């Protein structure tokens, strides 16, 4: 692929001129780059991470953490009890996500309109854009052969309880059933940005840089005039060159952690004081079932079915997704306890199933800089603790209804339930900071979108209220948690903003 990497740079400084410079090549940036380039704009797309071709994906998570993830998958909140996973490579998090592609529920889009004054992003307006992206990325509900034993058991449990369960929609073409989605799809079956919108943007004339971390948003007279970046050799970390891109418009799509940090570092677009606030992250919790029979939950497609019985906020605001990682992730990170405490469980990893409990959390977190260093503050709100407890009980009931002999909850002190009679234990489970083992695959909300410039960072056109030619097109704009996995919502938001930029150029380019 025609990507400019540090290894290709021969001079100490590089300059580019473009109509639009896009920062970040993940779900938001790749879509913006393609849509704008396809409309005839001269586009430069910058990615801080390296270009890693899929032939290098070796299905070994320990290796891929180092090569494909932000901070080598060691990014955490300040308390250290929330591991925030984001991709850092060409294609961004879409390279390392689990392929779940769900639409934002209508009630959430309506809430954005009613509570935050968001215009033009209701279910009717975005519906055709969801249709378009779903077609392009082969998004379809899993076929029977894509529902592995792990998800078959989850489906059985849900059906026994009479709870809504359905095949998970995924952006995948002829799934190879390898199960290593989160380590990158070696077979290019996952329709990530690496194999779709990024090469499409290049085909339409976009220039794409890897290893280029943007440090500066260049401003003049209240407008953005481009960006300044540093190109580093990804193997040594040494600076290779500086890169300046002059542009008529700047699109930030670096994700809900890096985008606000870039704005804060440059003191841009923050007259509201809201940049970096309202961070939410869908804290995700693994609920493990242990069965009498061998399951090998890691064999087959990673994501099989989902239970949306409790998805509406008034029913709990949690989603359950059947997904069992390999033995390294399962025993290395999910099975609680130490020494002889965890051995009886760890020894039966091939008898285990797993579901991920996704929580529609409150926007209580904050992303900021302290002494120039990134900080992510996030503690589960009291309301969300109760949401989680209810979720644990429901998840455990699913596994017991499927025939599990034990259910293991994601607590630091091992919590093993042996029957439904033990569900009351959940009420007394400690849930102070550090008591749970939480993951976040979906950071969002840190540059909130809305009509009021005093309370939000960007408007309904994706423009920063303070800087009309500075657009944010990633999950940081979501006014509330979207409940579902963020990739499809971001693809569609970016498609929408790119359409607006193409249809109303005077609004953006002045």
């Amino acid at each position, binding site marked *: 692929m025609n990507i400019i990497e540090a290894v290709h740079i021969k001079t100490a400084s590089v300059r580019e001129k473009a109509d639009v410079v896009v920062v970040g090549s993940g779900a938001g940036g790749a879509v913006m780059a393609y849509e704008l380039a396809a409309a005839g704009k001269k586009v430069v797309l910058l990615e801080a991470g390296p270009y890693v071709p899929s032939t290098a994906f070796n*299905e070994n998570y320990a290796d891929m953490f180092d090569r494909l993830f932000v901070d080598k998958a060691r990014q955490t909140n300040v308390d250290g009890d929330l591991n925030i996973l984001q991709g850092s490579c060409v294609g961004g998090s879409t390279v390392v996500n689990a392929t779940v592609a769900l639409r934002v529920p209508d009630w959430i889009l309506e809430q954005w309109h009613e509570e935050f004054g968001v215009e033009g992003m209701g279910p009717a307006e975005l519906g055709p854009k969801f249709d378009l992206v779903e077609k*392009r990325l082969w998004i379809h509900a899993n076929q029977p052969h894509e529902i592995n034993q792990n998800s078959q058991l989850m489906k059985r449990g849900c059906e026994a309880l009479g709870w809504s369960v359905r095949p998970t929609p995924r952006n995948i073409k002829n799934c190879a059933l390898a199960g290593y989605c989160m380590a990158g799809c070696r077979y290019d079956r996952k329709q990530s940005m690496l194999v779709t919108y990024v090469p499409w943007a290049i085909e339409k004339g976009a220039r794409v840089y890897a290893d280029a971390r943007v440090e500066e948003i260049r401003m003049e007279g209240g407008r953005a005039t481009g960006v300044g970046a540093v190109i580093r050799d990804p193997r040594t970390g040494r600076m290779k060159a500086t890169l300046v891109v002059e542009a008529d418009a700047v699109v930030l799509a670096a994700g809900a952690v890096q985008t606000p940090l870039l704005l804060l570092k440059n003191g841009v677009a923050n007259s509201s004081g809201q940049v970096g606030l309202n961070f939410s992250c869908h804290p995700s919790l693994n609920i493990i079932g242990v069965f009498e029979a061998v399951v090998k939950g890691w064999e087959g497609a990673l994501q099989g079915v989902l239970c949306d019985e409790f998805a509406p906020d008034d029913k709990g605001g949690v989603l359950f997704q059947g997904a069992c990682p*390999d033995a390294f992730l399962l025993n*290395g990170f999910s099975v609680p306890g130490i020494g*002889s405490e965890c051995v009886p469980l*760890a020894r039966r*990893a091939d008898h285990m199933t797993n579901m991920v409990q996704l929580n529609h959390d409150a*926007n209580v977190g904050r992303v900021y800089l302290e002494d120039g260093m990134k900080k992510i*503050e996030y*503690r589960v709100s009291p309301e969300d603790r109760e949401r989680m407890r209810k979720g644990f009980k429901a998840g455990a009931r699913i596994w017991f209804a499927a025939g599990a002999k034990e259910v293991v909850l994601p607590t630091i002190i091992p919590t093993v339930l042996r029957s439904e009679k033990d569900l009351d234990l959940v009420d007394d489970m400690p849930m102070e900071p550090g008591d749970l083992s939480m993951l976040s695959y979906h950071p969002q909300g840190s540059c909130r979108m809305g009509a009021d410039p005093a309370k939000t960072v960007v408007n309904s056109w994706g423009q920063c209220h303070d800087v009309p030619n500075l657009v944010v097109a990633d999950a940081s704009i979501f006014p509330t948690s979207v409940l579902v996995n963020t990739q499809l919502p971001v693809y569609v938001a970016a498609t929408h903003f790119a359409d607006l930029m193409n249809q109303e150029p005077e609004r953006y380019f002045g």
Partner: protein
Amino acid sequence: MDNQGPNPLSGVTRRDLLKLTLGAGALGLAAPLLPGCGPAPDAPARPANFSHLSDLEYAVFHKAAPVVLPPPGDGLPDYRQVPVFDNLDRFFGSFPDPVRKQVADGLRLFEYGAIVIGWHFRSFTRLSDDDARGYILRWRTGNAVQKAVYQVLTRALISCYWQAPVTWKSVGYAGPLYLRETIPSLGNAPLPTE
């Protein structure tokens, strides 16, 4: 609930971290001078080819390993036959600088905290195996900083154990699929035509 200003918990968090840094610094400076409070004299030497773990960190992990990892004879591979410490050294080399410093502070606090936490009057690496186990478990129910250090200490060891392919067979995991099956790549998707 929305966050319309600085999180009220942020002060607590920063104070916790400040305490951690100051505590680690003060204990790290003073404790080794007290009788019985320096690192254990019989602690194994860090292998010469290790480049990321410090001597103290290696000693702490070495002491914690028999408590944290599967005991020999429990049906899983003996950790002494698994390259846990090689993996740990590489793992520590992968931390971003600020995180690496926090981890170092946390482990130093853990080592010397044993002097006053539980009043052992000696550092962690000098504790008996039973006391070492009790001390580790005490951190899991401590304050937020202690729980974070407990997680780093135990998850680093456990994940570095399970990272080794030699452990996979014991739980029926065959490892990467591409090493066993040839599955063609589909390459880049064609440009949309609509």
